[in-house]
């Protein structure tokens, strides 16, 4: 994924991360894999943006972290959604829908 595409998604990255944690807690690598899978390989998150975003989200209180053991028995840092984060996810989704609808209208796509 080229750099400029990703910058467009800067604010949206937070939403994607929140969404990917919606189902269950995950570590950083797993989050990037999940986003890739759910987007059918279109969206690949750069680690350079992923970890700063995780730090930001945790600081805001929308996710929380805990050290645990991964599937292959290694020490890993797991993130999970907080109640506040879940609420935020809902808000972001609403925003996104409104925004994308508006843009579609402008661009002449129904």
């Amino acid at each position, binding site marked *: 994924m080229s750099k400029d595409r990703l910058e467009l998604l800067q604010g949206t990255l937070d939403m994607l991360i929140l969404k990917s944690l919606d189902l269950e807690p995950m570590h950083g690598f797993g989050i990037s894999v999940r986003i890739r899978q759910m987007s059918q390989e279109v969206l690949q998150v750069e680690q350079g943006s992923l*970890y700063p975003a995780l*730090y930001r989200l945790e600081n805001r209180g929308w996710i929380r972290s805990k*050290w645990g053991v991964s599937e292959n028995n290694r020490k890993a840092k797991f993130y999970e959604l907080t109640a506040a984060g879940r609420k935020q996810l809902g808000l972001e989704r609403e925003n996104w829908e409104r925004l994308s609808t508006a843009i579609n209208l402008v661009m002449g796509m129904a």
Partner: protein
Amino acid sequence: MSRKPQFESELDDELQFHLELQTEEFVRQGLTPDDARREAQRQFGGVEQIKEQVRDTRRLVWLSDALRDARLGIRMLQRSPGFVVTVALILGIAIGLATTIFSFVRAILLEPLPYPQADRLVVIRSVNPERELQLFGVSWPDLQDWRNQATSFDGIAAFRHLTCDLTDGQSTQRIHGMSTTRDFFEVVDVPLAFGRTFNADEEGTKSGKLVLGHDLWLHRFRGDPDIVGRTQDVYSWARYPETGPFAWEIVGIAGIDIPFLPTDTNVVRESPGINERVEFWQPPWVFNKDDRTARYEWTAVARLKPGVTIEQAASEMRLISKRLADEHPESNRNWSAEVVPLEELVTSEIRPALWLLCGAVGFLLLIACANVSGLLVVRGIARQQELAVRIALGAGRWRLIRQLITESLLLCLAGGAAGILLSFWSVDVVRAFAPPDVPRLQTVRIDVLVLAFALGLSVLTGVLVGGLPALLGSAFDLNETLKSGGRSVSAAKSRRRMMGGLVIGEVAVCLVLLTGAGLLIRSFASVLAVDPGFRTDQMLTMTVSLPSAKYEWKHNTEFCVELVTKLRELPGVESASAIRGVPTRETHFDSNLYFADRPPVPKHELPQAVARVIEPGFFETMEVPLLEGRLFEPADSIGRIGYSRVTVCNETFAKRFFPGESALGKRFSVTGSDENMMEIVGVAGDVRFSGLTRQPNAEFYYPEALFPQTEFTLLIRTAGEPQSLLGTVEKLVREAEPDVVITAPQSMDEVVSESLSRERFLMLLLSVFSLGALVLSVTGHYGVMVWSVSQRRREIGIRSALGATTAQIVWQIAGEGLLLTMTGLAIGAALSLAGARWIESELYGIAATDPVNLATAVLVLLLASLLAVTIPAIRGARVHPAEVLRSE
């Protein structure tokens, strides 16, 4: 916080983990392990970069958090403007005063002296430990030996202060300057703008060469560079009979104006200090070229060689002195040399007073901080609920503390701003009040460093003040607090303990300040009560200097007497006289005394006394009592100039040299030759010429007619207000001699008052500080009591329900408050006694550990505390138990 390295290592682990999994995935996709790892690294884009980005985010987050805290803090403070104003007021005053004092410290102690590399300049003094003498000066022969033998210095120069009259035929200007050896310019590093310094052959003779100071050159000679090489009429005004040639050649112009170096070897008058600039330089006239015992004329200033320490230089000088003592035992036995940094000499006198002020204002600041701390604790309690909710929402304890400290920081910065505003005004006020001989007084001002100090102080205050309440405010059991709506027993206990501790601390510190102020007030009163030895009211004084161009001292015998006679005839003048020197601020020269009928004594062990030249009406005009014998009669004033056959001595003289017997009829001379014997015909009361705080010297008087002066002070007893006669007197003096220079026209009361300016200054400042401290600590105690009573309403209700009368409740509450006071008083008393020596040097007539003073201060504080404690107790005891107990 040790969280940073932990954070870093965790981030490291996290990223490594990611990398490993990515590598494994590539391996699964078919790459070799090495390729997989390389590909993973590449995709990862550099672990360090990522870490850096996370770190950046972290910093940004921290910054935005801090800003958010600040914004929140401002909003919180906006809601309680009264609180903010109160705190800003309290802190503003304290920080403002502290800043003011600091501006003094900065100007006097911290700023380096205005000579290039001033820290390498030293003064080499003569000391005689056996006779406990410490002189600024050095004899000329010793000086030459020092210059030849010492290797620790880049030159040793000698100087002494001098005053001259500069005239161009039309106007005369009195100028102050130095007589220096020519290497002075190198040693002190005074560059020249034009011309040259002195040549070797110009030293030691009356060569009539002059180097002008820069400012003088600009103003008097309009900056004309052609003045170099021309001659000017400079009339040197020296103690010695021979005046120099009237026309002096200006050989150079200095590039800068340097302040006078400290010394006490001025020949005629009080030395100008570092507050004045040198206006001219002359080559040295050496009168006692070979006399090694003449140590009172020249001061040696030297520059340390690079790399040489003061200790090394000092030990070298000691060695050299020892050598000289061995070579010249008659003159140099027991004499040594000491090396003192110039900076130290300039400030040594004022230092104790300055530290005293620093300590006092520091105490005041502590009390103010304690007050504000208490206020914050109370405020924090009111916010318990809000804080608990924040914690429930996920704020860590440290976040909470950070937020609380941010708020207190904002408050204290507000206080600091108020303080800075105050200090702009107070620096001017304090500087106006300060004694004029405080070194470098004019450089006291608010500059960047002082502002930075104020800012730093505010921040420090903020952290200090907010720290404890923040720690307390955030330490509580969450459940308990949320359930009980903000009231928890254990937190209440630690709060009460802290408030109690604050009160104790404030009382203790306040007592120390009160004791200090009391000592200074008593001291000042003692000084005021000192009998100066003469009547000070309704007396006009002024110093009259005759232009040395016209008057050689030998030839103006009648001027003073005639002038005084004319003055006596003025209406409104009750009596008039004159004296060389101004009473209470005169420095002096000691004369050796050779008593008739006593065995000869080696020169350096001769008794000494001060000679004063007076117009015979002096005693009557000043109303100095005659104790024995008679005063001067007209016949005494007739005789050979420079020799008097009779003298009047003062009481100290008589008691010291003729204990147990009458001094009348005794004879002595000051030259050692029998020709010049004088007989004591009268003993008069002591006059405190050297100031009210110093013991009177042994003194004796000469009639002016035999020792005519070209400068003397008129003493005019007026019928009415002294100032009212000023114009008339001046007119008369100028009629007698138009070119005369009149200085310091004042009433004698003013003169005496000025001599006390330092004592007064300290007393006023410390009184202001301790008054502020008293107000703050009493109101602080009052506030704590009010709060404590309100917290204990329930308990008071219970006690009342159990049958305690109002009196019993008041007794109990007030008693607890008084216990705090007593503890504070005990601690404060101990501190006062322990710190007594810091104030010792500024006291007169009272010991620093004076028990009466301490007891008075204790009493004052106790009474004030009584009020602060009883009023809330009485109010609080009037609780209606039924109401309090019913509500749950």
